[in-house]
């Protein structure tokens, strides 16, 4: 099976390519990237006027399987990923059971083999049951296929235990992804602490609850020399701490999510739970700082923190509603609209943040259009505007902050290991 993608603007920062080129795919691999490829192909994709990128790598995704298949499954979540141009996802371990043992990795691996539509990689839990009490066995988790560790959704509160986790992670040379949050300082809050929480009469979450824990996580990582990745950075102070650490050669990377560079706390004023997430949407200044951090390279990665929840858990009183929003199907268009649209990123940098950097951080052989690499490629119409509609999501859940918004940039084709998917809606 040969597929030829013709005359698109090919962006491949790993090979310093930004030019009108053709790509020939044979079976699951890229076989040639050049101008005017003359080859007999089974399928030709006319990419004139389109942008051709390496498939996106989203390193923060909740697929909910096993345990909460009512919210999402590996099948539905990975289909949603493909529709959003995401060909590889890192599945977070806060499932039921948590992915904290060899046996549980086997469960999820079997499920992935059976039903995944995209490349699904496994992040295992730092502590058993994600309870923050006892470390899981990193060596066996890695051996079984985990490529990163995280208690995402929670932070490991005990300093000594976290220090030990970093020591073990260093020994096993495995990445630790930190959900940096001091729950005590967060004080049961549901929105950002500030004028908005006062106006709404809701408990506020201070930025302190985030950045104090970012500071600790980086400090412990530095002591041990382990690699640490700070998930879903939402505020300015965290960025300052990360910038200092990077300057001091700490092995730290970080991500933020589309909702943090698109919205700020004022989006919550209508009490719509589709704007309830943790960390919360912060002030406008924080949102601008996130944009700046993306533009100047401080923030390495854009990840969706795709967090599906059913309507029963979301369309209820704000304080009772679950935290989190889906994002796989809107992240690329959000980045094109908000970051490219405001000249904060160009296409190459966008590929860095959404494909090549996460790939490198996770040690994956993804994020490039290298000849011989897996044919994970997307074809994007950069001009097409579309309205985000609940009924068009492939995800099982519909809890998106972007519903009703007009976004620019539409994924027309997703090739995942050479398999072609075409999107119309």
């Amino acid at each position: 099976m040969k597929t030829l993608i013709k005359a698109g603007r090919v962006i491949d920062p790993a090979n310093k390519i930004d030019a009108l080129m053709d790509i020939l795919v044979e079976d699951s691999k890229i076989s040639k990237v050049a101008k005017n490829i003359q080859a007999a192909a089974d399928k030709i994709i006319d990419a004139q006027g389109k942008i051709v990128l390496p498939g996106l790598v989203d390193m923060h995704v909740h697929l909910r399987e096993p345990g909460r298949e009512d919210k999402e499954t590996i099948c539905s979540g990975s289909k949603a990923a493909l529709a959003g141009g995401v060909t590889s996802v890192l599945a977070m371990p806060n499932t039921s059971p948590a992915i904290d043992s060899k046996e549980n990795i086997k469960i999820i691996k079997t499920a992935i083999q059976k039903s995944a539509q995209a490349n699904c990689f496994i992040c295992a839990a730092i502590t058993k049951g994600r309870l923050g009490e006892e470390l899981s066995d990193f060596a066996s988790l890695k051996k079984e296929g985990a490529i990163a560790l995280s208690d995402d959704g929670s932070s490991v509160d005990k300093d000594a235990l976290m220090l030990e986790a970093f020591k073990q992670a260093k020994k096993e040379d495995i990445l630790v992804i930190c959900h940096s949050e001091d729950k005590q300082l967060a004080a049961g809050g549901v929105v950002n602490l500030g004028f908005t929480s006062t106006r709404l009469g809701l408990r506020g979450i201070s930025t302190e609850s985030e950045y104090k824990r970012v500071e600790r996580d980086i400090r412990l990582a530095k002591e041990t020399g382990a690699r640490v990745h700070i998930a879903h950075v939402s505020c300015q102070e965290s960025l300052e701490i990360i910038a200092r650490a990077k300057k001091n050669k700490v092995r730290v990377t970080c991500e933020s999510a589309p909702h943090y560079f698109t919205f700020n706390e004022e989006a919550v004023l209508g009490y719509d739970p589709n704007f309830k997430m943790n960390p919360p949407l912060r002030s406008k200044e924080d949102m601008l700082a996130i944009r700046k951090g993306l533009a100047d390279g401080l923030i390495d990665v854009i990840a969706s923190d795709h967090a599906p929840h059913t309507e029963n858990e979301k369309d209820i009183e704000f304080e009772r509603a679950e935290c989190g929003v889906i994002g796989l199907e809107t992240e690329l268009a959000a980045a094109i609209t908000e970051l490219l649209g405001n000249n904060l990123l160009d296409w190459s940098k966008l590929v860095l943040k959404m494909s090549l950097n996460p790939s490198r951080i996770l040690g994956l052989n993804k994020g490039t259009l290298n000849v011989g690499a897996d044919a994970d490629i997307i074809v994007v119409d950069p001009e097409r505007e579309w309205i985000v509609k609940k009924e068009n999501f492939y995800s099982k859940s519909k809890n998106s902050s972007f519903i009703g918004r007009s976004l620019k940039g539409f994924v027309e084709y997703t090739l995942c290991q050479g398999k072609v998917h075409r999107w119309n809606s």
Partner: protein
Amino acid sequence: MGWIRKDLLGLEELSKEELELILSTAESFKEVSSREIKKVPALRGKTVVNLFYEPSTRTRVSFEVAAKRLSADVINIATETSSVKKGETLIDTGRNIEALKADIIVMRHNFSGAAVMLARHVNLSVVNAGDGWHEHPTQALLDIFTLKEKLGKLEGLQVSIVGDIAHSRVARSNIWGLTKLGVKVTVCAPKMLIPVAIEKMGVAVTSDIDEALSNADAVNVLRMQFERDGETAFPKQLEYFKEFGITQERLKKAKKDIIVMHPGPINRGIEMSSDVADGANSVILEQVTNGIAVRMAVLFLVAQANEKIKNNEDVN
């Protein structure tokens, strides 16, 4: 301009003109309660459902009396006796009430924003009778109505709100309403009970009760909910009275005819001494009377507006 909202959810979103319209409508309804037959047919054939997720006597009774004086039928639902305990969602409850062909839900809820959410999901009118720490618009309206009745005007007045500002829906609604109507507002509380960035609501902030009283034309004293003690930082009762309690002693240093208000129920000897509560400056019982007129006005306006909305939809 007329009233066009199907709901009354808070005072934050109202314009000065809308606030004035409610107040003037309330003025015309006030007389009804002094008639021998205390009833007008304005809402005859309408059904008002009081849906209370939090215990409340005075607000519920006040709404009930208001609805009945407008000739509406009134149904009271309290959480103890409803299927809410069986796990029904707020939206389902709202839609069921709608299916009963009720016209107005008056809702008290312990979660901030609950009324806003309910109003989004039903076509009937929703009147917020207090949601969490967010708003209690009819309480603020009756406070403002009483103030205007007593002092003849609102513009330029100085009002101090004293007590647990952080957890008070009454404070928030009063602040929005008063500031829009040209009243200068000071909030006074122990620092731990002043919410972040409250000054952005256009108020002055102090923790000195004498300062709060010094220039005030009125003081609105909030109920201290000591049941919160332990849940968040909270002052001790006696300390609070010593530092912030309104006494005759303190009133002596204030304007002679300062008006003392309280949304009730009063903790005598905690927020204020008994002699203040029962004294010449107190308008606490007049507030209760005015609450009926204000709630009649609100029920009448939202019902009328929703009627128009429905008729327009029929035309379209």
